[in-house]
């Protein structure tokens, strides 16, 4: 049993297990509800995947290095607003400015953490509120519209049936993240920093560079995600954007990230995001009320958290022998 939980922790195997689960959901809905997943459903699943995915990827990288970036939700909102406001001079320019702000925000927060020796939760909570506040100031708390509708159309036109520009960019980011973590020295250094920061420093890893880099990427991805969504909707609002924070955290944990650092992989996180998106869309297609969605997602997270628990097999065994003892004594 312990070996099984260890296997589940391997990112690739975990991704496979999660995808199997997804296939099961599809099969069950096809057999019992007669719902066949068509290209339209899959397209909407991937749109959802794109929105949460980039935020979860950035957050997941900060979790992997042993920190926690709460500010992604604020940067997501700020990125969307900045992209739409500045984007009137050209959408690419707007996108670039949004991403640059994301990078700057990440770097500033990381430097504060390193220089002052502070905890990332405290700093990024400040970041979350600050970025959201700036978005409110920039937009005067109203939604801003983007006039060039052709951009929105380009964003949402299906590519190869199920993909869109947004989901393709997201998938590309996940693949790049996977390569970075598995096949480069920087990836190993990030995992080492999350695994045992002191050891990494002693071995010669520049842990502060790694931290700054990861937070810069996290900020950039959150801003990018917000900008892409806002272009897709042709509008941005400091309040109107749906909350991405909780789904992103859920996806990281589903995907095998450990809040104590050193564990997690972009491919696992991608699988986690996809499962969340599919569960959500699947339930909608099945006609289940949205309020039940939260219960299903919550239950799923609980199951995963229990399966991830340390020494699960041992505890189950103890529990079993305890029960047997009780029964035996009766």
């Amino acid at each position, binding site marked *: 049993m312990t070996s099984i939980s260890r296997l589940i922790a391997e990112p690739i195997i975990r991704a496979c297990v999660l995808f199997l689960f997804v296939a099961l959901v599809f099969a069950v809905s096809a057999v019992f509800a007669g719902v066949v997943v068509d290209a339209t459903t899959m397209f909407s699943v991937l749109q959802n995947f794109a929105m949460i995915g980039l935020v979860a990827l950035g957050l997941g990288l900060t979790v992997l290095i042993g920190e926690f970036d709460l500010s992604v939700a604020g940067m997501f909102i700020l990125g969307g607003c900045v992209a739409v406001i500045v984007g009137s001079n050209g959408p690419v320019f707007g996108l670039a400015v949004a991403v640059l702000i994301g990078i700057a925000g990440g770097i500033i927060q990381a430097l504060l953490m390193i220089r002052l020796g502070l905890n990332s939760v405290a700093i990024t909570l400040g970041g979350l509120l600050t970025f959201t506040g700036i978005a409110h100031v920039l937009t005067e708390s109203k939604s801003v519209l983007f006039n060039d509708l052709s951009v929105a159309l380009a964003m949402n036109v299906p590519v190869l049936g199920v993909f869109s520009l947004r989901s393709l960019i997201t998938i590309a980011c996940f693949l790049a993240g996977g390569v970075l973590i598995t*096949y*480069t*020295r*920087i990836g*190993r*250094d990030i*995992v*080492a920093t*999350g*695994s*045992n920061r*002191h*050891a*990494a*420093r*002693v*071995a*010669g*890893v*520049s842990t502060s560079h790694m931290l700054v880099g990861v937070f810069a990427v996290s900020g950039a991805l959150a801003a990018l995600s917000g900008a892409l969504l806002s272009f897709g909707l042709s509008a941005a609002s400091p309040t109107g954007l749906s909350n991405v924070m909780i789904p992103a955290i859920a996806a990281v944990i589903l995907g095998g990230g450990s809040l104590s650092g*050193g*564990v997690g992989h972009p491919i696992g996180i991608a699988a986690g995001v996809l499962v969340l998106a599919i569960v959500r869309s699947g339930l909608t297609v099945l006609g289940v009320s949205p309020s039940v969605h939260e219960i299903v997602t919550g239950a799923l997270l609980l199951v995963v958290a229990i399966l991830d628990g340390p020494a699960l097999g041992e505890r189950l065994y103890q529990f079993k022998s305890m029960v047997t003892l009780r029964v035996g004594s009766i």
Partner: protein
Amino acid sequence: MMPVIEARNISKNFGRFQALRNVSFSAAPGEVHALCGENGAGKSTLVKILTGVLQPDDGQTLIGGEVHGIADTQHAQALKIGYVSQELSIAPHLSVLDNVWLGCRGVPLLHRRNELRERARRALNLVGLAHLSLERRAGTLALGEQQLVEIARMMVRDVAVLFLDEPTATLSDREIECVFSAIRELRRNGKTMIYISHRLGEVMDLCDRVTILRNGENVISTDVADISRGKLVEHMLGRSLSEMYPQAGGMSSVGALEIRGLMVPGKIRGLDFAVPRGKILCLAGQMGSGATEAVRALAGLVHDATGSVVLDGMPLKLGSVHTLLERNMRFVSEDRAGEGLFLNLSVEENFAATQFDVVRRFGLLLPAPVRELAERLADIVTVNPDRLRSRCGDLSGGNQQKIAIGRCITPGSGILLMNEPTRGVDVGARAEIYALMRQLCDQGYAVVMTSTDLEEVVGLADMVLTMYRGARVSLYGRDEISASRILLDITHPLTYENAA
């Protein structure tokens, strides 16, 4: 031969404390050079300066005969200087392969796995880890294997100078042999190694030259072949014992605490001893000897400890802190910040923290009785009563230690368990703490303590039990205690017996 690494007239201060005074050191290519000295002699400060962790206040470092500063650890790596620290530095979630290459500047961004695997394999074979899978997660290795992986890490970096800080402290005999053969192999390849160890047997067996430091100053640098073990010990100690230690009292030797068959898996292999009231028993041993663990086990902090403990003729259950408190057996930890005191609370709250029963009135914790108790204890342990409201963390190490001891003083005498009673305590307060311990003994307390400060052991203890790797070596009474015998016992008793 031109020294490959050299330190000239290095001085280093930490505040008012002079860690190094005009120290020089040099090591030639292909030599294993032992760096010896007691705790606090300045060994680690010198090593930190030569590996770029610290900068000297005065003096020069030379690499390959040229004056060359060592800016930081990255710079040291570029200068082909490697360091294996005493504490383990493994990233537990990464594979063995990744740990071997961790932090190496030579690895290309997109690594060529095959070449890296091959070189890592060769380094691991060299340190005797041929059986280990490269893909195994490093966190699942035994401690000794982790230490060997760290040495392999230095080997793939092709270092010219390698500092090894007590690399055998936590290893088994077989693993020590692997480390030794790795060191000999590196020496054949012309590498220089600086070997820091308290185990004199290892120094005599393995090393070519030895440099001894004492109180931050050079004592001697010589070929190992030209010096006897006894002379080595003499140079390390080298000072007469001062008047720091109080006269031993003459309390009756009624048995107070008797321990039989104390065992901790992997740490202590069956330990028997007894302490009468009025005496200070010191368990002396290096790191890994089990001395500290024995005291922690008695304090109920080691969950897998077994053995029989009899206090005043009544058996005592191991592992329950609550029972210990009831029977007046108290523990003073060496780690004051971690498990000794509540540094954020006031001095008086700290005094009262373990004696709520004494200060409680009608089930309530009222300020007046707390203050009364704190004033009484502060008087006994000589802490200035004006500081009772101060934050405990703002006091000096010496005062903190007095509070930690004061907290253990109960109505009726008990047993005091202490690890390193004067760690981080300056000289003046040290003498006061010794006097306090003696005073408590004269009132009927018994003390079981550990110390790695040899001078302290010799000066303070009534009985010394020397330990080596989990077992007792010998037990000395007051008249038989001598620094050189203890040092020989705790460094490498087997080689000692063979030599004798």
